[in-house]
């Protein structure tokens, strides 16, 4: 099949050598690439029950058939591993030339296993001692630029901060702690280059489709991202009462206007840039660095970068809504210079801004309630950047913060778990669940945890199609459809910002795939494949110990109504969420509790050698194998669909 190379490069960091392992066309047809192929490889390569930070745990860079074509936004790759934050699958995307370079190696994925004996870099297919240990990913990439395109970790990844990310071209595979996995392997960076062309089935047709997509993507459908960027969300979210503030105690922020895109564009020097192979250009960079707070915060921090001062202002920094909300309102920080500096500091350290901000916000509430005697405080910009540094370097309390909000709650004890802002260990992004109840469902059932990337269920809430204050059966349907669309886009891989430029996501995507691969995909095929990829990802979590009780939200969201602001009175009763979840599971073809029937599982594992291992794993004592429809006593039972 064209568009693929039909193999992956498996490199053992302990042995210092790699091999190419073939992948059947049938697997590529069913998983496509990106998160789909990555999930399949994770099933195959990860020992069952492996510690995510153990040498045996694989770290997967998964490419896709569209990489290297002229299709706009297609230069993306997925990084997939067992998450040290959640214990389930984590698959984060990044946009960069690294994807193109990886494909030019002549492989569809890179799988790293084992661990280096010392801090190392994988350059031109060989390991060498790292000369960049202790430096930022950006600095590391610059030092290795002569060897190709680079994916690297920052100091936080080296220190195995559980929400450290992996950076490439300044973009981050941020969520779920994939940088900690790379750090646990003592691998600072991987630099790749190649010259293998990927054969395309119908180049002329690909060119025509690419031209048409570029034109549509330059239309109104992406205008918001081009003109304002995702930071344009902040003020609207404030007005709608969905802007998480002070660890989700409120849903609006009295200093929102100071942090708004509208204000930024009026008052700050600004640049707009694009990811590799992207014609949209959603990346907005803003100048910062002249406030008293920023200087104070920086002077107390130990970052090796120069402190931003009026005389020596740093370059404009990229900022997205998620970073803005998490490092701003969520922590009660309204000083835009501090928030922009904090976003930049997270990038330098190599940590996920959402988890960093949310974990700090949680600690702030713990301190306000007297559950922590020391620690960060709300509305305290002066110490804020210092806390980020402490996390990245695991200094003092930062060592506990680096574990994420769930583990911190367990160590703090008391009722703190009720307001730890996480699902399955992954911190919530910037959407208040009580006033966005379709998204609340998406968070609760998210395979990665609280996730706005693999579920865009908020789209239904931000429409006149559902009552966002009262989730119901429609919410369940929207949540399923949204996850399926994301599974397809994240496997192709195309940026979600082109979603509005595709008239029919499935049919249009089938046309693209057909032109690239020659395989006669149609829209219905892709609908089935998308749902199957969702199954595959969920099946990994089941294998690693998922239980239905994990599909929920923290008690705060189920027991406390919002008391102020536009969403005052909004409440999400537990029974309502449970009803939505049950409905969602049934719509997925799973049992009401969320177990996958064996009839669906068998298809998933058709090409995997490990089916028996998998079945053995889920039928160990303490698990109700009959619910799973797993092989019990040598027989496969059908799951009961209650």
């Amino acid at each position, binding site marked *: 099949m064209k568009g693929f190379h039909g193999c992956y490069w498996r490199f053992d960091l302990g042995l210092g050598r790699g091999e190419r392992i073939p992948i059947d066309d049938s697997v590529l047809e069913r998983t496509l690439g990106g998160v789909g192929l990555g999930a399949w490889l994770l099933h195959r390569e990860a020992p069952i029950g492996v510690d995510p930070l153990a040498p045996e745990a694989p770290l997967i860079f998964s490419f896709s058939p569209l990489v290297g074509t002229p299709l706009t936004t297609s230069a993306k790759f997925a990084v997939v591993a067992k998450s040290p934050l959640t214990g389930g699958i984590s698959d984060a995307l990044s946009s960069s030339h690294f994807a193109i370079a990886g494909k030019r190696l002549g492989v569809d994925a890179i799988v790293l296993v084992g661990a280096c004996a010392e801090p190392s870099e994988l350059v031109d297919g060989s390991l060498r001692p790292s000369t960049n240990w202790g430096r930022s990913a950006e600095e590391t990439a610059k030092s290795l630029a002569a060897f190709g395109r680079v994916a690297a970790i920052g100091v936080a990844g080296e220190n195995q901060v559980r929400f450290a990310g992996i950076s490439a071209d300044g973009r981050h595979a941020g969520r779920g702690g994939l940088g900690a996995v790379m750090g646990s392997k003592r691998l600072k960076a991987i630099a790749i280059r190649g010259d293998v062309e990927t054969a395309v089935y119908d180049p002329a047709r690909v060119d025509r489709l690419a031209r048409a997509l570029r034109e549509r993507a330059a239309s109104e459908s992406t205008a918001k991202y081009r003109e304002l960027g995702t930071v344009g969300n902040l003020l609207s979210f404030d007005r709608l009462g969905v802007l998480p503030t002070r660890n989700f105690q409120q849903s609006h922020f009295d200093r929102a206007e100071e942090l708004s895109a509208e204000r930024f564009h009026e008052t700050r020097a600004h640049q707009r840039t694009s990811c590799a192979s992207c014609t949209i250009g959603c990346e907005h960079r803003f100048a910062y660095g002249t406030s008293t707070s920023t200087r104070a915060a920086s002077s107390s921090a130990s970052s090796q970068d120069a402190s931003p001062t009026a005389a020596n202002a740093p370059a404009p920094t990229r900022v997205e809504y998620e970073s803005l909300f998490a490092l701003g309102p969520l922590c009660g920080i309204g000083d835009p210079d501090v928030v922009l500096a904090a976003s930049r500091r997270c990038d330098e350290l190599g940590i996920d801004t959402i988890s960093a901000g949310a974990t700090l916000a949680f600690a702030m509430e713990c301190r306000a309630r007297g559950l922590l005697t020391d620690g960060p405080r709300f509305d305290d910009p002066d110490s804020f950047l210092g806390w980020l540094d402490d996390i990245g370097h695991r200094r003092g309390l930062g060592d506990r913060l680096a574990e994420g909000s769930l583990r911190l709650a367990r160590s703090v004890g008391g009722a703190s778990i009720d307001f730890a802002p996480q699902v399955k260990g992954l911190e919530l992004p910037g959407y208040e669940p009580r006033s966005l109840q379709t998204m609340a469902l998406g968070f609760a059932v998210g395979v990665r945890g609280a996730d706005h990337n693999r579920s865009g269920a908020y789209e239904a809430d931000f*429409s006149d199609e559902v009552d966002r204050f009262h989730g119901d059966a429609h919410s369940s349907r929207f949540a399923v459809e949204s996850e399926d669309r994301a599974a397809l886009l994240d496997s192709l891989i195309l940026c979600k910002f082109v979603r509005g430029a595709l008239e029919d996501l499935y049919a249009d995507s089938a046309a693209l795939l057909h032109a690239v691969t020659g395989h006669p995909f149609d829209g219905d095929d892709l609908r089935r494949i998308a749902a199957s990829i969702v199954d595959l990802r969920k099946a990994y979590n089941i294998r690693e110990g998922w239980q239905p009780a994990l599909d929920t939200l923290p008690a705060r969201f189920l027991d406390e109504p919002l008391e102020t602001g536009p969403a005052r009175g909004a409440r999400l009763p537990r029974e309502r969420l449970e009803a939505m979840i049950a409905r969602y599971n049934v719509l997925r073809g799973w049992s009401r509790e969320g177990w996958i029937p064996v009839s669906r599982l068998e298809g998933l594992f058709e090409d995997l050698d490990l089916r028996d291992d998998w079945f053995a794993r889920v039928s160990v004592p303490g698990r109700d194998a009959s619910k799973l429809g797993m092989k019990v006593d040598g027989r496969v039972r059908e799951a009961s669909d209650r």
Partner: protein
Amino acid sequence: MGRPKAWLPWFGRSMVEHVVDCLLPVVDDVVVVTSDEVSLPPLPARIVHDRDPGLGPLAGIRQGLEAARGDRAFVTSVDAPHLTKDHVRALLDVGGAAAPFVDDHVQVLSAIYPCAAWKQAEALLAEGVRRPLRLLESLGYEAVESARMRDPGAWEGFNTPGEYLEAVRRVEPDAVAHVEFLGRAARKIDTQRVDVPVGTLGEVLARVSGTSFLMESNRVSKGYLVSIGGRELVRDLEIPIGPGEAVSVIDALAGG
């Protein structure tokens, strides 16, 4: 109406808050009957959920009477902008079941019912009866002529945007709404905030120059969405915008 009546603004409060505030000084206990579908603001009242919202107002009355404490209850719908405590007192003074009788119509949703009548209501519902008037008739209610009422019009409700806006203008002819343009809309018209007279959403937007790009026939244009009071997200240009209401025009593509 295109919007939940309970949340329509009434001079600084929502309609349901206005009605509850009117009742609190003259009754011992306020019960709000609502369906599961409608969320409400925090209220100094007991909230009960209508078990059978599909059966109409008689089922709601049954539910409210069953929950109420005391001998008699004043029953009103939530769309009662001109309700006064004098009106409630006047009806209570009649004794027994009582309802205004105006222009040959019995105002069954601005009336006094014995609390114990929830059983009769239940029996009527079981017979397939849906009209509250049958309950009043079975109770031997007293029809109170408008001439005997202290506040003519106190029972008047509204069922269309025009009726609601007329009620607003009767109280405050110069009532205004606050319109805020965010994101791309603000950049296109170079305006962020403006106050305009109340009206339908289409009328309100049209009063700001340069906003025609926001409207396509009777809907808000595809790339935009309107938030009202930070709660409702709407596209229908025919819905009413009330006094003091905050209208935000936002980008439709919210989210990351």
